[in-house]
């Protein structure tokens, strides 16, 4: 009940946020724009629509995750609205879970809207829809939720600017994880080797959650790639939630 109350409040906060609406309209507009862009690429329209659409979904989902996720915590702490809630008979972990749940609902609704826009564009252009995109969309959702958890984790103990920087760094390194591994293997004796190795193991490999190219190009995927991605992402999400709860439960709300 208490978690749900916080989740519902968070959901209201996010859907009444103009930034979210603007990003969503822009994302859907951009997906619809592929109707024109697709026309430019002879014989490749379908591929361009899918590729462009999934990328837009990923990037704009990420923007929403970072800006709304960080704002959600920092606003509570800096504007001190948290005083009214945290002084009530509610555990701090319930506040965190409620916030993550509320924001997740908003993000998932966004993904649904963007998916409708993508499939709608496909239907207009091709006269059919490719349900084979669904696994990629599912893992994009997991990736966005994971980034939300990073944003909330950082913003539970550092400023909004630093939180945004760290979250973007995690996203970037997460997608360059393969390069990082190769670099460590090729140059094992370079300075800061231990640091790079540490980063490689701590930051999630977000390419595991990236099936965009595979579904667009109809490439053969490793068996259980979706299930593995799902479990990998959920594992990180749980770990981050646990760390956030530990930090947030012990901190003074000054």
């Amino acid at each position, binding site marked *: 009940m208490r978690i749900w109350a916080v989740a519902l409040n968070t959901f209201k906060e996010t859907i009444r*946020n103009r930034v979210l609406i603007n990003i969503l309209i822009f994302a859907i507009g951009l997906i619809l724009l592929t109707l024109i862009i697709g026309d430019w690429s002879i014989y490749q329209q379908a591929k361009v629509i899918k590729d462009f659409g999934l990328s837009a979904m990923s990037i704009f989902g990420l923007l929403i995750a970072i800006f709304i996720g960080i704002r959600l915590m920092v606003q509570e702490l800096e504007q001190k609205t948290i*005083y*009214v809630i945290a*002084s*009530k*008979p*509610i555990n701090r972990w319930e506040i965190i879970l409620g916030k993550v749940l509320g924001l997740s609902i908003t993000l998932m609704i966004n993904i649904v809207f963007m998916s409708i826009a993508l499939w709608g564009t496909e239907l207009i252009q091709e006269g059919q829809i490719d349900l084979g995109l669904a696994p990629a969309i599912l893992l994009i959702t997991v990736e966005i939720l994971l980034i939300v958890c990073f944003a909330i984790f950082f913003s539970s103990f550092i400023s909004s600017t630093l939180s945004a920087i760290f979250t973007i760094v995690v996203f970037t390194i997460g997608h360059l994880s393969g390069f990082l591994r190769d670099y460590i293997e090729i140059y094992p004796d370079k300075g800061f080797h231990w640091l790079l190795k540490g980063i490689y193991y701590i930051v999630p490999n977000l390419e595991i959650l990236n099936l965009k190219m595979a579904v667009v190009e109809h490439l053969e995927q490793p068996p259980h790639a979706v299930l593995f991605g799902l479990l990998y992402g959920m594992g990180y999400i749980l770990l981050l939630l646990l760390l956030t709860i530990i930090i947030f439960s012990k901190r*003074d*709300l*000054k």
Partner: protein
Amino acid sequence: MNNLIIKTEGLAKVFKETTYGGLKQKTIVALDNLHCEVFQGEVFAFLGPNGAGKTTTIKLLTRLIFPTRGRVWLFGKENVDHTAMKKVGYLPEQPNLYGYLTGKEFLNFIAQIFGLDKQVRRKRIDVLIERVGLSERVMHLIRNYSRGMVQRLGLAQALINDPSLLILDEPMASLDPVGRKDFRDLILELKNQGKTIFFSSHILSDAEMIADRIGILNRGKLVSVGKLDDLSHSQTQPVEVTFIVDSSQISQIDLVKENVIVQGNRVLVRLDDKEALSSLLRQIDKWGGRLESIIPQRKSLEDYFMTEVRK
């Protein structure tokens, strides 16, 4: 009056502040060794200048921050988790409430956190909205409320669980005179219902009007606690003496080194303590004067407060 509602023992809070980009660390003792008791049904005012540690104490009571040392008991049980908060209503100093919600949505949200069922929620919200005078604006977004309206809504949320203990941090700071009067009436009404009220304030006149007991906090330390009358009487008490004396004697009155007002042959002398009274009376007798009145002056809370914080 013998049921302990709040008890603190050796309560202390030290904050560490980093400056110069984290290179230098400064230690601030916000609260030091607070021993305090508040009993059932009393209105306890926690007074002190800015930075005295009032808000820190309140945040420690409500578990927004955790003590560096010492312990807190609420309703006879050590306050180690949030369970006691079920019976507590808390209004923060200059509350910031969720601007994207309407007043009614906000109260409903808070009532949900207390686990109140839908029917109770609806009934209580309606009564409270009426009580704090927000009926006309309750469907508007909070971001469009004035400071005073936010304060009233803040008070409504503090009462949503029908609390036994109300903890209010500077509750009258952003209210206009009418709002303050309403607020004082409400506090007295709640007191009559048997609720315990602990509030901090720097508006001494309000505290003087409604508090049963006061505690004065200065630089993190509780410098005095008790009933206002007892505290005032524990100090030297001024006395005003009026007498009639022959005009030929008036020039000699300068000898009395106290505040003197002369009007014709009537003289008013203000003595800072009763001890000087007997010598003045002997003097009046010597001058052949006639005593008109001796009036003990009650020290105001402000006088007392200023004496304590300047010590």
